[in-house]
């Protein structure tokens, strides 16, 4: 059975997701000893910027825009109408940038592995916990519970997809095996995505922007027989620790991170926090990229 990690990296004008994916692949090799496949629309940039890309990535799958460009190791872009979202860099800096997140639903069709862990490029792997995914018997794992480093913020939006709707699941880290049931699931996620206007009304979502976490949560609810519960989707190992984009990742040193966490009620002030030896989802892409630059330049 082949095993590996799949990461999606689609740059916008300011955020270099490819660089994050490159760093992630290195961490995956170091801690999990697994190959990584990258799915990107910036293949040319990847080959130009990272000389050792062939040793870091097992496969590069490029996103193309025309059917006539389709060859081996390419996939067709689902849409060119990308959404825009607000990216923060700490509490005082905010930018509205393009967010190309629609390809993730193709994970099942694109993965070259029998057993796959799909990871966001802004996750830092810092231990070998995910190895357990391949040893356990459940075919689909996803995080339901996550832990905010700051502690004081109200993130009830991560309990349910809206106040009156179903459980929230994080599409940030997923493990799946290639099974008939998982094929049905991923086809369903694509169906939800393609009919987003309908599903967001049925599931009482008041956000306009499409979000993978919501599409996956809706699909899990349907697969589960339209009832809450953990029958279809089991929990990924450990807990998903995260810092939001209002926090700043200041330094990465081996397995240790120094964060500046947003201070409650004091805009622009931060509390330092040291965090080590656990995987973490760093939502502040700008500070993550600055730290990766430092690590890669050492």
């Amino acid at each position: 059975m082949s095993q590996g990690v799949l990461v999606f990296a689609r740059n916008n004008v300011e955020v270099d997701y490819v660089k994050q994916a490159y760093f992630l692949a290195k961490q995956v090799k170091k801690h999990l000893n697994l190959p990584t496949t990258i799915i990107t629309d910036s293949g040319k940039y990847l080959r130009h910027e990272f000389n050792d890309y062939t040793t870091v990535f097992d496969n590069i799958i490029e996103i193309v825009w025309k059917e006539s460009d389709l060859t081996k190791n390419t996939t067709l872009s689902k849409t060119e109408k990308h959404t825009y979202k607000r990216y923060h860099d700490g509490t005082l800096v905010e930018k509205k940038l393009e967010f190309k997140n629609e390809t993730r639903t193709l994970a099942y069709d694109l993965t070259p592995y029998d057993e796959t862990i799909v990871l966001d490029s802004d996750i830092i792997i810092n231990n070998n916990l995910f190895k357990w995914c391949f040893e356990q018997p459940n075919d689909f794992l996803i995080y339901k519970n996550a832990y905010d480093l700051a502690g004081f913020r109200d993130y009830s939006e991560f309990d349910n997809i809206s106040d009156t709707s179903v459980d929230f699941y994080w599409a940030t880290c997923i493990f799946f095996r290639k099974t008939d049931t998982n094929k049905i699931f991923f086809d369903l996620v694509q169906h939800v995505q393609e009919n987003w206007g309908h599903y967001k009304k049925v599931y009482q979502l008041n956000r306009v922007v499409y979000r993978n976490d919501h599409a996956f949560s809706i699909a899990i609810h349907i697969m589960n027989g339209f009832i809450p519960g953990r029958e279809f989707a089991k929990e990924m190992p450990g807990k998903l620790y995260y810092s939001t984009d209002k926090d700043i990742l200041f330094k990465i040193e081996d397995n240790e991170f120094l964060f500046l966490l947003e201070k409650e009620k004091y805009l622009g002030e931060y509390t330092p926090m040291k965090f080590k030896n656990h995987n973490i989802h760093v939502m502040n892409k700008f500070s993550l990229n600055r730290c990766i630059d430092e690590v890669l330049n050492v």
Partner: protein
Amino acid sequence: MDERLQKALDFSNYMVTLNNQKRVLQETVYQDLVYYTSGSKFTINKELICFCSTLANLNREAVVLIDDNDIPVRIENIKDFLENILDVYFTATNKFHSEYQKLKTSRSVEKLIEL
């Protein structure tokens, strides 16, 4: 600024940082207290330890336990299982103790985050 107020504000910052570090340390210890075996997952707590200890004392060998995902798992040797969970438990709690002591003796923000 009044020196007394400055000192109080410095101490306040120290307390916020200390409490944050303690909170995250405690949370990560919960993660260290999980035992993964044969594809199953057990959160180790005193209840699990006592139950396994009772089974071992009753000279049971192979038993079925229910893991964190509510899946029944056949444990072939409960004594080995007990030994393993105790090992994980003490590794995690010893680490917790040493990290906690380090925090307790760090009297400034700089020392707390070892800058």
